[in-house]
């Protein structure tokens, strides 16, 4: 028996409801607003009064309006058809909505129930299975989409029957399982899962031990993110956060990409809609859209659904991870989600923490980041969710609650810097302040030595040192003037400029330069380090500047040429000549 209630108070989208029966925290309810049903979520209960946040505008709502509780939390529908979809934060399919404007109370089905999928059984009658075990698979694009024992199933089941290979829709019973009590349960190709609860139907969660390539040099070479790792990109507006995230989305070495546009500009999402269907995945040669799901709750869409949007996105990621796939989640921006929490906490008149954010902000962020990770499935295979979030710090100041809380939770930090952006040194990732904790992992170091080249992490450290020394030299030059410092300072400075222009800077809009595979990154880094290792004997700083300007120009041309093409080799030869004449 579901509880009901009636509205007793309204402040913006926070509504208090007098209930007639039991309700649970985070339970979903619908409020009848003059015939339109508004979805809401319980966020606080006090006696018979429940405080609910409404996912829509509450205009026209009255005290006394009827509320029906649903006896379930906010759930995501999981099944084939999630990829290449475009959802709002509550997983309504935006593409099937009618009209130009979003209509209040219009909720659409996330999955197509009539579409037929080519099903192939994996499990056989008599198999013992538990939650998340694979029963069969369908082809979703080019990906094997596993049909699993629903995550909510507890204990061990015996497969009673599985349908033969053939075409079925998602509501067809594809398997019958018998539980320990001997009762039969039907399994279809779709299941539901509460988005705020992590899916834990896996054997273990080991430390990440591989790198996820992004094709972005400043990430892969300098501060790599691990497959199943976490990272975040804070930066003031205009520093290229979105361009960097889109680059990662286009090039990331993942099988499934989920993009959560959370409280950001609608035109940026339009850009994804317009560009992604045209773009080709560099790893598989397929259309990018085929491996991408977009969760889009732009800044003008209901605030409460912003929070839901990141959880919905994470749940979809975890679902694909359970199929043994490499999943990448990008959320832009987690600050907007935190602001949504702040608005709600404020309306509930909770005692505020720093900058009026709720005091448990840190805990909320870290438990969300903890849902990412590499897992070993029950069948011994691995799957992973790599998560990169952006943060929009107020006033570009990194000493604010969202950045600080995220810093505690994420293992990679890519600080975008106004200064670099002003100089058009893109991506404007600060090479000194940014870090990847994964470089300290012995298993990652070993992996990189094997995958890239022996002693790779040492080379990366050396590169960072060149940049640091270059900064010091530059400061001295600025204070003392070009003539006031020894030649070695100029050389130090220009070596760091070489690293900056060739390794750090990358043209996200150039077809060649935008994606640099790992072997090419290795080749270029070695080339740059080789120059940096040399001691030159320049007459004066003008000669030093000329030499490095020329070297930078040639190496840049190499960056713009196809790897090992005629042009590439031509510039390489010119560079070699320059170096042998330079000494």
């Amino acid at each position: 028996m579901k509880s009901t209630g009636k509205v007793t108070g309204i402040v913006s989208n926070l509504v208090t409801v007098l209930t007639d029966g039991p309700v649970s925290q985070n339970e979903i309810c619908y409020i009848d607003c003059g015939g339109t049903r508004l979805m809401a979520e319980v966020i606080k209960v006090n006696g018979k009064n429940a405080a609910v946040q409404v996912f829509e505008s509450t205009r026209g709502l009255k005290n006394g309006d009827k509320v029906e509780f649903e006896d379930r939390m906010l759930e995501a529908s999981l099944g084939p058809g999630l990829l290449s979809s475009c959802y709002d934060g509550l997983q309504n399919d935006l593409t099937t909505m009618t009209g130009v404007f979003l209509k209040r109370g219009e909720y659409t089905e996330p999955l197509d129930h009539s579409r037929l999928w080519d099903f192939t059984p994996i499990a056989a009658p008599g198999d013992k299975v538990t939650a998340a075990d694979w029963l069969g698979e369908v082809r979703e694009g080019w990906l094997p989409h596993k049909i699993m024992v629903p995550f909510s199933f507890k204990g061990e089941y015996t497969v009673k029957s599985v349908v033969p290979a053939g075409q079925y829709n998602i509501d067809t019973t594809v398997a019958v399982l018998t539980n320990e009590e001997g009762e039969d349960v039907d399994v279809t190709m779709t299941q539901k899962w509460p988005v705020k609860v992590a899916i834990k139907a896996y054997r273990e969660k080991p430390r990440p031990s591989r790198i996820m390539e992004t094709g972005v040099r400043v990430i892969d070479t300098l501060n790599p993110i691990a497959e199943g790792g976490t990272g975040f990109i804070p930066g003031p507006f205009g520093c290229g956060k979105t361009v960097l995230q889109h680059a990662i989305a286009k090039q990331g070495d993942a099988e499934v990409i989920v993009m959560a546009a959370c409280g950001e500009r609608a035109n940026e999402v339009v850009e994804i809609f317009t560009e992604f269907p045209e773009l080709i995945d560099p790893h598989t040669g397929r259309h990018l859209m085929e491996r991408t799901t977009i969760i889009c709750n732009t800044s003008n869409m209901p605030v409460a659904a912003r929070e839901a949007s990141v959880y919905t996105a994470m749940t979809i990621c975890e679902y694909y991870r359970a199929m043994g796939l490499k999943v990448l989640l990008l959320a832009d921006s987690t600050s907007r989600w935190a602001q949504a929490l702040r608005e709600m906490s404020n309306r509930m008149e909770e005692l505020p923490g720093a900058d009026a954010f709720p005091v448990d902000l840190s805990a909320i962020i870290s438990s969300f980041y903890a849902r990412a990770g590499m897992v070993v499935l029950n069948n011994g295979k691995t799957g992973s969710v790599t998560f990169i979030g952006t943060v929009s710090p107020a006033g570009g100041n990194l000493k604010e609650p969202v950045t600080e809380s995220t810093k505690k939770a994420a293992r990679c930090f890519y600080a975008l810097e106004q200064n670099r952006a002003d100089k058009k040194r893109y991506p404007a990732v600060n090479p000194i302040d940014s870090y990847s904790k994964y470089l300290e992992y012995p298993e990652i170091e070993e992996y990189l030595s094997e995958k890239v080249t022996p002693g790779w992490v040492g080379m990366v450290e050396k590169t960072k040192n060149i940049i640091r020394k270059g900064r010091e030299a530059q400061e001295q030059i600025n204070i003392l003037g070009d003539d006031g410092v020894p030649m070695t300072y100029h050389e130090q400075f220009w070596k760091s400029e070489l690293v900056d222009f060739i390794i750090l800077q990358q043209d996200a809009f150039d077809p060649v330069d935008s994606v640099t595979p790992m072997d090419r990154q290795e080749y270029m880094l070695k080339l740059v380090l080789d120059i940096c290792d040399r001691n030159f004997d320049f007459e004066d700083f003008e000669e030093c500047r000329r030499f490095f300007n020329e070297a930078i120009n040639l190496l840049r041309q190499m960056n713009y040429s196809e790897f090992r093409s005629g042009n590439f080799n031509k510039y390489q030869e010119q560079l070699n000549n320059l170096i042998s004449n330079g000494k």
Partner: protein
Amino acid sequence: MANKAYQRIYTQLESITKATVSLKAVGVSNDELAVVDGRLAQVVKTKGDTVTLQIFSGTEGIPTDAQVTFLGHPPVLKVSDELSGRFFNAYGEPIDGGPEIDGEERQIGGPSVNPYKRKQPSQLIPTGIAGIDLNNTIVSGQKIPFFADPDQPYNNVMAQVALRADVDKIILGGMGLSNDDYLYFRHEFESAGALGKIISFVNTTEQPPVERLLIPDMALTAAEYFAVDKNEKVLVLLTDMTLYADALSIVSNRMDQIPSKDSMPGSLYSDLAKIYEKAVQLPDGGSITIIAVTTLNDGDITHAIPDNTGYITEGQLYLRADPDSGKVIIDPFRSLSRLKQLVIGKQTREDHNQVMNTAVRLYSDAQNAKTKLENGFDLSDYDLRCLDFAKEYATRLLAIDVNISIDEMLDTAWELFGKYFTKAETGIRQSLIDKYWK
């Protein structure tokens, strides 16, 4: 506001603050309008039987036995083609002495466009100002503010931009305009003979600040009527959004909300986004473009208002007084139009992108030379040429009083390149040099 038969009337206020009154009432809906002692008010909170109303014009002189009439609907605007050429106050009432508008009542602050149904903005809006057209091209469906100190002539620039822009309708939302500025806009629009395509919603400094909260929604409801129903290209001017945000903070303060950064309400980002995100390119050809003004306090862009605005809008245009040329210019470094790449070189000449970047780079070299000069270092011949270039570039292209076509802007830039630099120093692609070098 005539009383109608079904309206409920109350006469017992329970509490009065500077901006709100509370009373016991039933059957009241959220966001509904009411008239309290003859003044317009809106429901902002209900708790049990107690309803809290925000009174737009303030509560001065309201007695506890004031008559309260609920109107049964949220704020509305009557929309029709009759809006054209008219001036209204924050409530959508004519202030130009003309007749009431006859039209369909629309609730203001309506729903958002489904992001999936939007189209990518793609139509250039020329303004004649090179600081905009050349360096920071504006595209229809874009939202972009001027960041300006209060002493800069932002309203004049906006009026010029509006009158030159090739659009079907211009809608002015004036918030906290000084009476002089209001009359200035009126005069400019009238003397340009463009009154027929202009609609103004104005709240002046003489009127209560809370009223101005209605202005953007009024202006955008009118804009949506012309863009969605009539498929027209609409340009919305909002000035000054800083005063709008100040009004938000007054209300949230009176409602006992906990302020976040710079005493602004925690919802500032969402409040501003709701307005700016109305900018849209619609599938059927209509569009809403928003050009706003955010005045800065001593150039501080880390303040919550410009900061949140920057995260929402698609770029910003900085106005700056340039001592070298003695003109107000559009700062080429800090200004940005995020959508310019959608039209540059596509709807403009092929050399646009390279000319734009080269000129800004050379201008930046001039700034370095200036720093060198200030620090007492010697200037090279190149430095001196850069400085001369910078002065002429600022005067002939960056200044806000420029009014030429984009081709003329490009030609002017080529002329300056040829005057001060060698071909190699510009680093422009050879094929373009061959074609355009003067």
